C-alpha cells in the first residue's frame, strides 16, 4: 500500500500535466526505513521524450547523495505515460532497480482526468497496490 499526502500527490499530477506530452519523472524522498514519502523532487527527464524517460545522471547523483546525507531514501519513484495507461511497461519493469520503492505511474492521456496508480516492482514482478491519500 502507498500512503501519500494529498499535497505530494497533487504535485506529481501537476508535474505530469506541465510536461505533457513529454514523460515527467521524479522522486518522493522520505526518512529511511519509515515508508513515508515527505519530500517532492521533480527530476529532469534527460530524454525529453513522449515515450521514454531517464533521470539526468548528474542530477541523480546529487539527489541520491543528498538523500543519504539526510538519512532518507527514495520512497516513491514516479513517471508519467502520456498516451498509454498508467501501468508499468516492459521497459519500466526491466529497468526498475530500487526494490524498496513504490513505483507510481501517472497517465495524462485524457485531458480531463489523470490516472494515478502505484506498484511494487521486484525481480521483474509487478504488483499493483492500493493508494491511500491522506490530508
Amino acid at each position, binding site marked *: 500500500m502507498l500512503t501519500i499526502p494529498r499535497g505530494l500527490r497533487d504535485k506529481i499530477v501537476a508535474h505530469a500535466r506541465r510536461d505533457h506530452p513529454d514523460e515527467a519523472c521524479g522522486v518522493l524522498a522520505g526518512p529511511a526505513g519509515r515508508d513515508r514519502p515527505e519530500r517532492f523532487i521533480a527530476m529532469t527527464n534527460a530524454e525529453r521524450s513522449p*515515450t521514454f524517460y531517464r533521470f539526468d545522471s548528474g542530477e541523480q*547523483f546529487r539527489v541520491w547523495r543528498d538523500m543519504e546525507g539526510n538519512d532518507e531514501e527514495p520512497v516513491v519513484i514516479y513517471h508519467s505515460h502520456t498516451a*498509454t495507461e498508467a501501468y508499468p511497461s516492459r521497459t519500466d519493469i526491466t*529497468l526498475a*532497480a530500487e526494490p524498496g520503492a513504490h513505483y507510481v505511474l501517472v497517465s495524462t492521456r485524457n485531458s480531463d482526468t489523470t490516472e494515478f496508480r502505484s506498484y511494487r516492482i521486484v525481480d521483474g514482478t509487478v504488483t499493483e497496490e492500493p493508494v491511500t491519500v491522506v490530508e
Partner: protein
Amino acid sequence: MAIEVRIPTILRTYTDGAKQVEGTGSTLGELFTDLDHKHGGLRDRLVDDGGLRRFVNVYLNDEDVRFLAGLDTPVKDGDTVTVLPAVAGGAS
C-alpha cells in the same frame, strides 16, 4: 592503494550486503576487474561487450565517467567511485 567503491542496494548481493568496498587499479576497467576477483559476478552487471552498461551510471568522485574516458578513466588512491543504476523507463 585503495579506491572506495559505493555499491547500490541492488548490487549488494555480490558484496555480502556491503554498501562500500575497496579495490585497486589504475583505470576504471582495471578496478572493475579487481572487484570481480573479490566479488564474483559484479563486473558483469557493470560492463558488457560495448563497455559500460547503458543503464548503469558510474561516477568518479562527482563526475559521470561517460563524460570522462569511460572504462579508460584513470583512477587513483583516495578516489571514490559510485555506482547507481539509471532511473529510466518508457511507454513500451
